[in-house]
């Protein structure tokens, strides 16, 4: 027997052709005893058929070293599994249907305490965005952690990223920002120490980016560092430091801002009986000059070319923006609303409104945010500007946000549906039952009357279907469809809205009940 395997020899003879390749045909058979006679061509074909069968029937697989797979242990017994129907809906979303609702599905599953069946976990790890996988690790369950041991490609989807000093020291700018913010969450002081250790050698763009990372997690421990950053060579770094310091209540920077602005506003509250006759009065005094310490604290000397504002009024707005708004109401012993009302009567009404708004966003106070929202709505400014201001103010509101949002939606609706929807869209928060009710009722009036071919609200509807309260929307939508004519331009938009709502309702039913 030749050492070349029979199959390989057959292939090479067949490739060349028997006319050119000579070969002892008996030698081609897997066993000489089964060889049959024939022409050389038939010999090759028959030997090939016999060899194929010989190897197929005769193949035996060898024992492999045992696999080192360890079971995840507590799998599937620990928690109830997401039911099959719910899992298939999840699959449909992963393959593109209503993909935007994936996050809601995951949060419902997490709230119900259910775990994805193990066989669904690989597709989830492959197709659910990493950030969602990390946030909803409980839904992926122990199987995900176990799978990572078999396939490290999924590690980032399962193990929360750990801050690493090495990557802080050697990474790209973007990576260093990520490391800094991770370390900042874990240990703010040590993150600051990381930052200071490379600060003097970091390029200006990096210094600016790093200071911006600090802003959302600012603490009193950062003050000395930020004060020093006010003397940075690069303006962008200085401005980033100012943004941080104005958010740090009680710090020296804020004290200086108060001292600087204190004399700019005076309050004349009528005493005794005259209170009934005369309104309180706010007097505004423009700053006379801009000294070096004020400029160091971030007050710019020249207004940008596009802003139609005088130099000194520009200084005024910047100085007021750096002062916590509560300072004024406490000092003058009056409400924010009264101050704003009085301000509206001055020559600087809009400057004060926008300066106080910036200040309230930096040092939120629910009384001021509320009064400022009302102030913007009464300002008579262009609608887009009003919404923009409302979004900033309500976004800064923290715990008070739902109350504030509802209050001003009530003020906008039903007459300003476009503005209300815009506000909701930009805030990106979930609507409660009340908001859903309000919006859909307003929508009903519009649908009933509207014959225009285009409406901003109609285009916005689809995205907002994801935020509305499902139960309320299911109640309200049939009433809307009733008043919507078959030929109405609203018809399609309402039907897709209903699709999304129904999809979300089914999602809930499968996961919650």
């Amino acid at each position, binding site marked *: 027997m030749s050492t070349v395997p029979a199959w390989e020899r057959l292939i090479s003879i067949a490739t060349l052709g028997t006319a050119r390749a000579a070969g002892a045909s008996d030698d081609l058979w897997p066993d000489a005893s089964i060889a049959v006679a024939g022409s050389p061509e038939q010999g090759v074909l028959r030997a090939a058929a016999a060899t194929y069968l010989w190897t197929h029937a005769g193949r035996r*697989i060898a024992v492999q070293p045992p696999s080192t797979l360890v079971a995840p242990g507590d*799998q599937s017994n620990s928690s109830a599994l997401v039911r099959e129907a719910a899992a298939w809906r999840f699959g449909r979303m992963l393959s593109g249907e209503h993909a935007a609702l994936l996050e809601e599905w995951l949060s419902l599953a997490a709230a119900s305490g259910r775990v994805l069946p193990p066989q669904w976990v690989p597709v989830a790890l492959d197709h659910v965005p990493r950030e969602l996988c990390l946030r909803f690790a409980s839904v992926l369950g122990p199987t995900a952690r176990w799978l990572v041991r078999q396939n490290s490609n999924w590690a980032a989807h399962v193990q929360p990223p750990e801050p690493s000093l090495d990557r802080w020291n050697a990474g790209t700018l973007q990576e260093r920002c990520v490391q800094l913010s991770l370390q900042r969450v874990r240990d703010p002081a040590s993150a600051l120490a990381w930052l200071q250790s490379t600060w003097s050698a970091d390029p200006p763009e990096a210094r600016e980016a790093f200071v911006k990372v600090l802003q959302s997690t600012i603490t009193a421990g950062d003050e000395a560092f930020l004060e020093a950053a006010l003397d940075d060579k690069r303006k962008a770094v200085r401005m980033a430091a100012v943004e941080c310091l104005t958010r740090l209540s009680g710090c020296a920077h804020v004290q200086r801002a108060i001292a600087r602005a204190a004399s700019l506003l005076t309050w004349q509250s009528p005493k005794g009986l005259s209170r009934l006759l005369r309104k309180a009065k706010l007097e505004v005094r423009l700053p006379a000059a801009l000294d070096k310490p004020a400029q160091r604290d971030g007050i710019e000397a020249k207004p940008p070319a596009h802003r139609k504002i005088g130099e000194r009024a520009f200084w005024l707005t910047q100085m007021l923006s750096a002062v916590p708004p509560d300072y004024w109401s406490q000092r003058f012993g009056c409400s924010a609303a009264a101050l704003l009302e009085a301000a509206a009567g001055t020559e600087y009404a809009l400057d004060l409104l926008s300066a106080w708004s910036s200040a309230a966003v930096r040092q939120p106070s629910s009384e001021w945010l509320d009064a400022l929202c009302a102030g913007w709505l009464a300002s008579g400014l262009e609608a887009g500007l009003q919404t923009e201001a409302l979004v900033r103010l309500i976004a800064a509101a923290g715990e008070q946000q739902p109350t504030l949002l509802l209050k001003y939606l009530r003020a906008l609706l039903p007459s300003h549906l476009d503005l209300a929807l815009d506000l909701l869209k930009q805030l990106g928060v979930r609507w409660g039952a009340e908001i859903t009710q309000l919006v859909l009722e307003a929508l009903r009036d519009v649908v009933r009357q509207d014959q225009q071919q285009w409406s901003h609200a109609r285009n916005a509807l689809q995205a907002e279907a994801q935020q509305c309260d499902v139960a309320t929307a299911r109640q309200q939508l049939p009433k809307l469809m009733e008043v919507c004519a078959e030929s109405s331009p609203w018809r399609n938009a309402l039907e897709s809205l209903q699709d999304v709502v129904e999809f979300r309702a089914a999602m809930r039913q499968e996961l919650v009940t």
Partner: protein
Amino acid sequence: MQAAQSLAKPGKWGNLGRNQRLLWGECQGSGANPYQVRVDLQDVAYKCSCPSRKLPCKHTLGLLLLMINDAVQVSAALPDFVMEWSGNRAKRAETRPSKEATAPDPEAQARRSEKRETRVLAGVEQLEVWLTDIIGQGLAAARTQPLSFWSQMAARQVDAQAPGLARRVRAPLAVEVRQLIGWTQDQDGVRARAGIRDHWSVLGRRQSEDEQLRTQRTWLHGRESQRFALVLEFAVGTQPLPATFVTGQCIDAELVYFEGVPELRVLEKVRHPTLQARIALPRVLDVTALQTEHAARLASNPWLERWPVMVAPMLPIMSGGQPYLQDDTGRRIGLVAGFRHGWNLLALAGGEPLAVFGEWDGETLDPITVHCRERWFTLAQLGELPLLSQVA
């Protein structure tokens, strides 16, 4: 499906109704007249007047979804378009048995059969000469031949009434075309024979599509007989494939085997009323038994391409990015090329062995259904996603 869901709203429909057997409705589409949709729930037949070539069309699916959501009321009166259709169907059903009633002329049959045999023999001889020629010249030379060189031979085999051979000639060009269809057996003759009544577990189902022909393969396993059975169903063009078997069900039926070595393909002769039984696990093999039995089958039929098997206990593993099943003696088998459910299997098993039903071709297993912790899963796909769908 998404299109159908958008139609599953009562507002889109007129003339909706159903009775025990039929379901109907008129859906306003883009045309002037509404599309008339009717469904026979018992025979799983349907018709829609829309021009869509998708079967079932979105209107039919939408109507069925409506019914599932209980949005269709039972109605005693049938609209004309429903009456007409169900009447036609009943008529067609009546004419069918009459074909069986006219006894075939045995002489004419023998003549036809002889004629075909002669043609096939001539075709096979031609094929051998052609193959001998290729081997004489060498495959290297054959590789430079145009596509028509191969397809002409295939066409000649079709002319010679040996389409099974034709497929094999084409096979190198279209690997997925691997159906064992050659000389068809007379179905009425098969049906006339006595069958095997058993509780048959429906282990899995697959559909494949050729240019004109859609094929559905359903694998069954008898609880008492311990035999596998394969039901082949075909649909041409726009015909729907029948939905007579549901994976995960267990049916009480009499099946008749076609002739074969070994026997596998069956016809369903009688279906007895629905059985409330769980599907049963067939006899399981480890890797050594799998190979030994396959060798024995090859000895009886050297042309055997693949055979249904249940392998267990098998631990799914991934090694070098490739999926394997490993039995408890440490022997591994590979899975069919392009298998995409490797990680799903691994996750389902979670480090414990499971049982896999599939087709074994002597080298790799093509898994169809999986049994794990007393539950059954079938391999499925949703868009591009490989999934395991729980069926029982």
